[in-house]
């Protein structure tokens, strides 16, 4: 009964989305006041319907209603309650529904909070969102229906994939999807602005917070995904350059470029056409990210098994959305002229440099990801582009980005000079050189470069913040007080850069990792990374729906006990699948990582031990970046200063802040 209601709510949501698209897009043309007010109401209604549909699917999972195919195939009566809930989006059809739910949530947020946006622009934005939403709801309802029923229902479900039976599944997909889908708002704003034929500072100010929200979620989502793969896959890899990771990175790169270029639009009314294009590109890449994986075109760890007609449907949807918006851009963009002027060495110049390099990196990653399917299509050759390609092509391109990152925030708007900016951060350069020389001396060239870059960026961000609070030039108490009266966008930006530096530190530190693979019998030990790892015993253990073999390993240093680690091997009885649960201990600046890989007949166990210096900083940096974005979002001008469109064009240069 409940799943049927859910299915009905889904169909109703499609009808509402269609109405939202038509009324939203044509309402402003008719200048009808009621039609203009209808779009936000429809957006909220669409969200409520999809919320009901999603709740119905979760309900079916919770009560184990095996007449729903989605539940029967991806849940079972022995699955713990938590995973019966998260299992809802742990498969293709359910995750599609979650995707549509978040898209409608975006529309509803614009409907509720977008009261300061002119009603015609808001109506068009919601119209565009309704159009996109309608397309994907049609897809969900026709070829990827999460409520499809089976009869007779199986007695026990097939159970959730053991790898997905992890708290990561509760966090990673919803956050990542919010990030992906959130860019739909920037996209809708861009398309609506193209329809209206007007992009100005106010536009930049409306678009930036929405973009920032999705950027924060995308950053956190990628971060959690990387952490999940780190502890799940059992050998401590945090980034594989797998196609799915790449397609999540692509919108992150262009989205990062967009939040920087939108600042220039907002403050200086320049880079308008470019920002509109970036907004379109970012959402297009998000769509590609979600759907190329599902279409079966890309060969990946995350691949959902999908039927061929789904792939075709998706490709048509993608072509319509991306092609349509680019066509509109081609017609309307020439009318959007820039007004602000500036010199190459200036804040604007630095932000342009940032945009160029972020987009070039995105282009490289895109090429590497799309090359294999194209070669397969054209020449029938099956090849793969592995991690070495990205390491060689992407890492050199991040170098200028890292160099410019510390200097950029020091430059004034319009016109600046490199000299005074460098004078402020000379100790950053000195520290970077010392780190470089020290690590190089110990024989790690790549790590030396990475750690030096990290030191440079971190010092640059700290100096930026210190300059703004006038540290050491006014009494410390006053500096501290200034920290809270500063525009929060500036604190957020400095934190964002700081977080990036910390992530670089973590990634560079990981190149210094050591590991060993060994077979131990109880009582035997092995030395690694200055620690002695001793196997005490191997004992059986029991989980909710799995049986485990648990190894107890004591780690000592110079004879003193440091920690006890308990890695496990789990056997899931329903699916007959073995998984490895690693034991990870951290002290904040290095991780100890032990996996128990197998047992031989003589009572010995196969182990993989790792010491990962600076590994926690990879994700800590990501979280600092997301936090920076969130703080920036609470800036006064987004909370209080309702942006108002200027009637007259401002004289060039008066908009500096």
């Amino acid at each position, binding site marked *: 009964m409940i799943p049927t209601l859910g299915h009905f709510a889904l169909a109703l949501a499609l009808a509402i989305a269609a109405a939202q698209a038509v009324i939203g897009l044509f309402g402003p043309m008719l200048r009808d006041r009621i039609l203009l007010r209808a779009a936000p109401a429809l957006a909220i209604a669409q969200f409520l319907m999809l919320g009901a549909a999603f709740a119905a699917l979760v309900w079916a999972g919770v009560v184990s209603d095996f007449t729903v195919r989605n539940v029967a195939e991806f849940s079972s009566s022995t699955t713990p309650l938590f995973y019966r809930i998260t299992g809802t989006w742990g498969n293709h059809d359910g995750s599609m529904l979650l995707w549509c739910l978040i898209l409608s949530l975006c529309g509803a947020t614009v409907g509720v909070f977008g009261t300061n946006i002119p009603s015609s622009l808001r109506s068009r934005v919601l119209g565009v969102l309704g159009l996109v939403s309608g397309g994907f709801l049609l897809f969900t309802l026709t070829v990827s229906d999460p409520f499809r029923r089976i009869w007779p229902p199986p007695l026990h479900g097939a159970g959730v994939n053991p790898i997905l039976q992890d708290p990561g599944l509760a966090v990673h997909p919803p956050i990542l999807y919010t990030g992906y889908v959130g860019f739909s708002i920037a996209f809708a704003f861009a398309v609506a602005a193209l329809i209206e034929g007007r992009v100005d500072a106010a536009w930049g100010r409306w678009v930036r917070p929405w973009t920032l929200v999705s950027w924060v979620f995308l950053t956190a989502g990628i971060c959690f995904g990387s952490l999940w793969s780190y502890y799940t896959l059992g050998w401590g890899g945090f980034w594989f350059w797998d196609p799915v990771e790449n397609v999540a990175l692509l919108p992150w790169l262009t989205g990062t470029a967009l939040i920087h270029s939108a600042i220039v639009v907002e403050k200086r009314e320049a880079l308008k056409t470019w920002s509109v294009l970036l907004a379109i590109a970012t959402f297009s890449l998000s769509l590609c990210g979600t759907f190329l994986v599902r279409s079966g075109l890309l060969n990946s760890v995350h691949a959902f098994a999908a039927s061929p007609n789904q792939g075709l449907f998706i490709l048509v949807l993608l072509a319509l959305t991306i092609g349509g918006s680019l066509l509109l851009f081609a017609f309307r963009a020439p009318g959007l002229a820039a007004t602000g002027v500036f010199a190459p060495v200036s804040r604007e110049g630095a932000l342009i440099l940032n945009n160029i390099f972020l987009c*070039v990196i995105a282009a490289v990653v895109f*090429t590497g990801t799309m090359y294999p399917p194209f070669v397969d299509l054209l020449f029938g050759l099956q090849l793969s582009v592995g991690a070495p390609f990205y390491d060689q092509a992407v890492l050199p*391109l991040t170098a200028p980005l890292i160099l410019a990152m510390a200097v950029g925030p020091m430059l004034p708007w319009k016109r600046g000079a490199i000299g005074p900016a460098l004078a402020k951060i000379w100790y950053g350069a000195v520290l970077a050189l010392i780190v470089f020389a020290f690590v190089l001396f110990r024989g790690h060239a790549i790590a030396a470069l990475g750690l030096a870059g990290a030191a440079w960026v971190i010092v640059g961000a700290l100096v930026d913040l210190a300059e703004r609070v006038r540290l050491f030039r006014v009494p410390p108490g006053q500096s501290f007080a200034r920290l809270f009266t500063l525009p929060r966008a500036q604190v957020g930006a400095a934190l964002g850069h700081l977080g990036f530096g910390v992530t670089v530190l973590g990634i560079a530190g990981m190149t210094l990792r050591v590991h060993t693979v060994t*077979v131990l019998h109880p009582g035997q030990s092995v030395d690694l990374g200055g620690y002695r790892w001793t196997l005490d015993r191997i004992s059986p253990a029991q989980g909710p729906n799995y049986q485990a073999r648990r190894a107890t390993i004591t780690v000592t240093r110079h004879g003193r006990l440091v920690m006890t680690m308990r890695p496990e091997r789990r056997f899931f009885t329903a699916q007959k699948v073995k998984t490895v649960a690693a034991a990870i201990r951290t002290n904040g600046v290095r991780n100890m990582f032990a996996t128990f890989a197998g047992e031989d007949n003589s009572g010995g166990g196969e182990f993989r031990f790792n010491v990962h210096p600076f590994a926690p900083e990879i994700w800590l940096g990501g979280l600092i970046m997301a936090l920076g974005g969130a703080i920036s979002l609470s800036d006064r001008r987004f909370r209080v200063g309702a942006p108002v469109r200027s009637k007259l064009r401002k004289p060039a240069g008066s908009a500096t802040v």
Partner: protein
Amino acid sequence: MMSRKKRRLWIVVACGIGLSSAVALMLVAFRSSLSFFLSPQQVLAKRPAPGMVFRLGGIVQAGTVVMGTRDGKPYTTFRITDGQTAIPVVFTGVLPGLFRQGQGVVTIGAMTRGDREFVASTVLAKHGASYMPRDVEMALRKAGKWNPKFGPPPNAAAWDDKSPRAIEADSKG
């Protein structure tokens, strides 16, 4: 302050430098890090040079997995088959949890001298029990052993026998 034309020129020059360096880097990286996928049959046909890294994929032939230790490190030997030919593989290290007989796997490594065996540096078997890596699926399809149009992959136990009839009989029973 510079004119709009001059500024545009600067931007175009900067974009040009960025893009051309990216293209150069990509071409260099492509030359050294593209790896081909070969099925056991293709290995016999093309005879890749010893030391050339490629990806070998297929089904782990049942009854061929032997595990042991060498110098205190675990090593495994097994054979990868596409139903027509089988290639012996040696792997030193920890196998992924989903590795088992009859499972589709992709291994990365190179042939030793004299085409005797494939030394794998990585074994990928990340997928669920019913999942077949796409490259392996294509290889099986080319070998005429399995077409996804006609149902699920043949039973794992059948893969130690190379005759199509045995596979058919097994999947029926």
